[in-house]
């Protein structure tokens, strides 16, 4: 395990910004720029926009993000387990079954409480 292999990733990260940014920068000079008030309106199919952009979002979105976050953490813990799997015994598998079952119980709870239903 060395740090050096990440040099490539670091360089790529920098370049992956620069390469797409270059044409955008070029377009600043090549493209016409003739703004007018109508053109600069927010596009809402021709109807003038009303009120703030911010509208009340439904709590449903939050529930999905919530379930996702907790399952994400779980998956992250499964990665080293999967990596070491060939060196482990059956007992390790049993532990992971318990680990996953607990989260499935939580998912079932969410499901039963109808928190996962899109239309209430």
């Amino acid at each position: 395990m060395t740090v050096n292999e990440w040099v490539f990733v670091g360089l790529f990260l920098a370049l992956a910004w620069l390469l797409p940014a270059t044409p955008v920068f070029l377009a600043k000079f090549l493209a016409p720029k003739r703004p007018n008030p109508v053109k600069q309106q927010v596009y809402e199919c021709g109807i003038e926009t009303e009120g703030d952009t911010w509208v009340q979002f439904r709590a449903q979105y939050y529930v999905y993000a919530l379930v996702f976050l907790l399952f994400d953490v779980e998956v992250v813990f499964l990665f080293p387990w999967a990596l070491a799997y060939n060196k482990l015994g059956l007992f390790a598998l049993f532990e992971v079954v318990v680990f996953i079952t607990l989260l499935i119980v939580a998912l079932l709870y969410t499901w039963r409480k109808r928190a996962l239903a899109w239309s209430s």
Partner: protein
Amino acid sequence: MELTVESLVFLLFSLITLGGGLLVVTTRNLFHGALFLMLSLFGVAGLFVLLTAPFLAGIQVVVYIGAIAILIIFAIMLTPQVTTTQPTNSQWIAALVVAVVLFALLASVVTPILSELGAEGWGASFTEKNPPPVPEDSIVELGSAFVDPERFMLPFEVASILLMAALVGAVMLVRPTPDEEEDAAPPEVSERALVESQE
């Protein structure tokens, strides 16, 4: 600290981390705050890579940037005070003083500045520079440690229980309250209402 490529990269990521952090606590716009939080946490992931812990860097990106920051943005959208004219409370000066004093204290403890100035027995010496290399199979080792009954088996299962409890608790809290459910009538009822109104 001599100037090498590694120390330059370290400085870059430290700057990203600290700069992002500063912007998080000072910006007026909460959405920008969440984006700066991502930037800062990305810097931390970079520091993890420098510390030869690529696995932790990976989960830093997955968990913090990919999930926690998204959750925070969703929560910001659910509570409409995204921009405030007054982001800080009345005690911000005191808070600033406390933070600066704490930083000075911590810095004086962890760095050898004070002992160089001649103060004996104040700071610990964390001047370690050349630690032994990390073993190749560090992540495999981590995987076995998680399920080893002698090591982290119990924390591993407790982590799962904690996640379960957090999910159940949080879902309890954000479930639509009864009066909100009345607003959004279930489709079955509305269909019935439609039929009844046609009569």
